[in-house]
Structures are given as structure tokens and as C-alpha cells.
């Protein structure tokens, strides 16, 4: 083997170890009995693996409830975002209406505004709607996004106009064309949009922290942040909490990796 081959591959392996180490250690420590992780030198593998930490999370700290909250919030946000963004993205690409180009330019311009600017008035709005500490309140900022509309539009531009024209000549309504012709063709980008939205909502922290004042509605990240402040010393328990928060999204990502990466690359072209 050439020296450069050895050098490059060694660097890749060292990098992979550095990247994976925190995640592997997290899993390992989550199976350690109480107090084992607070010894020196830090143990790498649990001497006697136990599920006690997970048991405690689910029985004493209502982790099941938080997991359910996270799942409901992410699923709801994803369903709504996919429908709204797809309809709009398709229309911006293929349907003609007054002010189409101007509105689209305006939307693109809005990409420079960070979401945090809206957070405080949004809280006032959510409060006046009576949606503080509800699932509805959490998903409000995710229901439609400029990025999502853009993603679908770019993809929909490549749909052949002849196909849509043919369906119109056959007398299909615009809605019918959308449902039976357009949506099936857009499927790959819909999966991309779906997984991006699901992961973003699942991982989101600041907005749920603000809007979910009631503990029983907390999502996993909000609950974990609260728990980690109370249980600073309980490393084993905290690692178990991190595992149940991360593993679902990691598995989802590994299953749909291709679509996720496609979304990132499409997004980076926008600039």
C-alpha cells in the first residue's frame, strides 16, 4: 500500500472514533448501575449492565409521556407542513396566478430573517389564541416554511407541462390533477421534506421551552434539559435520557439518509 493510502485511511478512522466516541459512551454509561460512572478512572464498559436507568426514567420520570408528546408534536407538524408546503410549492412552479413572481421573491428575501425575531410576538399571539401549553401552540411556527415551499418548487419545476395539460383536457379538476398526477411524481421530495421537518421539530428546543409551560406536555428535549438541571450528578440516568431522545431520530435518519442528504444539498443551492 502507498503511504498516502495509509495516511488518509488512518485519518478517517481516527476521525470516526472521535465522532462516535461521545455517542458510544453515552450508550455504554446508560447501562451502568448508579454511581459507577462517577468513579475514576472513568469506566468504558458497564461492569454489570443494567436497565435500571431506563426503568427509572419511565416509571419515576414519565419518559413515556414525553416521548409520546414528542412523537405527536413532530408527526402533527410534519403532516401539516408537508401538505401546505407541497400545495404552495407546486403552485409557485406550475400554476399561474396574480403576483406569483413577486410573492415568491418576497418569500426568498425573508430567508435572511432568523426565526428568533418572531418568537416574542409569536408568544403573545399564541397566548391570545389560548394555545400556550398545547400541541397546537408548539407546531405553529413549523406549519409552513419558506424553505419547504422552495424545496418543493425546485423539484416541481421539472414536471412535464404536457402531462398536466393532458389531464386538463381530460376534464380533471386542478385538485384532482394535484392529487392523482402531481403528488405521486413529487414523492421523493415529499419524503425529504417530511424527514427534515420531523427531525427539526423533534430536536427543537427554544420554542417548546417557551410555549410548553405545563410539565406534562413537555417534549423530550425540554424534559431532558429540566431533568439534567435537577440531577446534575446522576450521569447514568442522564445518559439513558439522552439515548431515548437521540436514538429515534438517528434510526429514522439512517433509514432515510438518501432523502435527508438530498434536502441539504437542494437547500444549499438557494444561496
Amino acid at each position, binding site marked *: 500500500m502507498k503511504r498516502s493510502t495509509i495516511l488518509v485511511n488512518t485519518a478517517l478512522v481516527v476521525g470516526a472514533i472521535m465522532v462516535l466516541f461521545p455517542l458510544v459512551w453515552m450508550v455504554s454509561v446508560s447501562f451502568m448501575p448508579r454511581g459507577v460512572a462517577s468513579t475514576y478512572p472513568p469506566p468504558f464498559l458497564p461492569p454489570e449492565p443494567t436497565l435500571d436507568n431506563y426503568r427509572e426514567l419511565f416509571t419515576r420520570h414519565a419518559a413515556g409521556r414525553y416521548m409520546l408528546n414528542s412523537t405527536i408534536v413532530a408527526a402533527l407538524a410534519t403532516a401539516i407542513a408537508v401538505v401546505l408546503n407541497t400545495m404552495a410549492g407546486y403552485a409557485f412552479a406550475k400554476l399561474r396566478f396574480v403576483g406569483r413572481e413577486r410573492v415568491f421573491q418576497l418569500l426568498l428575501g425573508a430567508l435572511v*430573517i432568523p426565526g428568533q425575531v418572531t418568537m416574542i410576538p409569536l408568544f403573545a399571539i399564541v397566548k391570545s389564541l389560548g394555545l400556550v401549553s398545547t400541541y397546537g401552540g408548539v407546531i405553529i411556527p413549523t406549519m409552513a416554511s419558506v424553505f419547504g415551499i422552495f424545496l418543493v418548487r425546485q423539484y416541481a419545476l421539472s414536471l412535464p407541462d404536457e402531462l398536466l395539460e393532458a389531464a386538463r383536457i381530460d376534464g380533471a379538476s386542478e385538485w384532482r390533477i394535484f392529487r392523482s398526477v402531481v403528488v405521486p411524481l413529487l414523492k421523493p421530495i415529499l419524503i425529504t421534506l417530511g424527514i427534515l421537518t420531523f427531525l427539526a421539530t423533534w430536536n427543537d428546543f427554544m420554542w417548546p421551552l417557551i410555549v410548553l409551560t405545563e410539565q406534562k406536555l413537555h417534549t423530550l428535549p425540554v424534559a431532558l434539559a429540566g431533568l439534567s438541571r435537577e440531577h446534575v450528578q446522576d450521569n447514568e440516568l442522564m445518559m439513558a435520557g439522552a439515548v431515548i431522545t437521540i436514538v429515534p431520530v438517528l434510526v429514522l435518519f439512517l433509514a432515510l439518509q438518501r432523502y435527508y442528504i438530498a434536502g441539504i444539498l437542494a437547500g444549499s443551492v438557494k*444561496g
Partner: protein
Amino acid sequence: MRRTAAGLWFVAPALIVLAAFFFIPVLAALAMSLTDFDLYALDDLANLRFIGLANYWQLLHDALFWKTLGNTFYFVVLGVPLSIGASLAAALLVNSKVARFRNVFRTIYFAPVVTTLVAVAVVWRYIFHTRYGFLNYGLGFFGIHPIDWMGNPHWAMPAIVVMAVWKNFGYNMIILLAALQSIPDDLYEAARIDGASYWQQFRHVTLPSLQPVLMLVSILTMAGYFQLFAEPYVMTEGGPLESTKSVLFYMYDEGFKWWSLGRASAVAFILFVIIFCVTLVQLRLGRREAAA
């Protein structure tokens, strides 16, 4: 005519949602920053008073605000180059012709990006633990005495930077990887014929070809890093001695701890203007470089 109506019906739901929950709030944030919006105003808007630029004026005279601004800039100035450097190094390695299992490494390097920030912050807080953390244990082999990462005002922010680089470098790596793969082989071929070394090829072929993409990822990363919040919230609660309190953390405290929503809006707006201006400066510098 029918198509005109149909198009509007298709965009209406998304546009109404964006208007109500994005565009109106942006304008409202500006308006609120000129008022003394507080808990009483939240109950009844009649309690609201217009106070002009008083919120901004007070912020400019608040030492803590300046401190959080300084902390945030420190995080950005340290974190963005390190993140992009790591992304570029990873992209070059994964893209190397002699690399094995490229897809496996690509997936591994990308994995931290999809993990939950709060959860990995909890994990890293443990890795940085002074007595039982793995980092100090590892550094011990090099004769380095344990460092109180989370408790020392000099080390807390660099520690957060390390975690941020670990969490985020995979994202830009993917974008840079795509850009690397789009550089035509002929360019390298020509450089080799001219007798260029690896380093010269990197310097005169790779880097110039990547320049626009590097520009893009540094702007995106910079804008993201200015919004630092969850890491200090979970790992240090802004301490020690407010050394990791970010602007957004300050906004959160003003708004949702003290319920000075007017002042918090002013903070949000200042942050927005800063991000906007830094982006413009970067774009201008980038154009000049491209022209040169």
C-alpha cells in the same frame, strides 16, 4: 381564468400561515421593541405604552448585554473557522481517491448533525466533567492536569465551541463534498502535467473552485452560530460568571424570566441587524476576493 383561481387556492393556506405566524410577528417585534410590553400588557393591551427608543437606549447602557454580545462574538469568531476547517478536512478525506468505505465514513461524520442538541449537550457536559469526564482522563496521559471545563470562565466557552464543532461539521462537509465532486478532473490533470504538487493543486485548483461554496457555508454557519442558546442553557446555565451567556440567552431571560417582552424584542432586533450586517460584509469581501 380557472387556473388563476386554482393557483391562489393552492398557495393561500401556506401564505396565510406564514403571514400570521411569521411576517406579522416580524413587524410586531419591531413595534413591540418600541413599547414597554410586559406581563400586564400580555393580559390587556390597554396597559401598553409607547416609549420610543428607550429599550435600545437601556440596552446600550447595560453591561450584561454587552457581555453577552461579546460572548456571542467570541463563540462565532472561534467556532465558525474551526467548524469550516473541520468540514473541509473531512470532505477532502472522504473525497480522497484512496479512501476506503467512503459512504460509511460519510454517514458516521454526518450522524452528530441529526442528533438532538439538548441530549448531546448533556452527554458533553459529562465528557467535560472535571473529575469523571473522559476528556480530562485522556489529557492526563499527556501530563495535563484536570481542567474545570464548565467551571472556569476561560474554558467554558472554548469547551462549548468544541462541542459545536463536533455537532455541526458534518453538515457543511456534505455541501463541500458535493462541490469537490463537481470540480472537473481536467483541472487536476492540467495541474499535474505542469508539475504541481498536492499542496499546489489544493492551493490553486481546489480552493479557488470551492470559494463560492465556502462563502455560502460560512455565511450559513455564522448566522446559525449567532443564535447560540441551547448549549449554554444546558451545559453551563450561562455561567460561570456569565462567561457563556449568549445574546439569545439574554433575550430569553429578559422575555420569559423577567417578562420584559418589549426589551426582549429589542434584543432580538439588534441580533437580527448584526447577523444581517455581518452577512453583507462577508458577501462584499467574498466578491472582492473572487474579482481579484
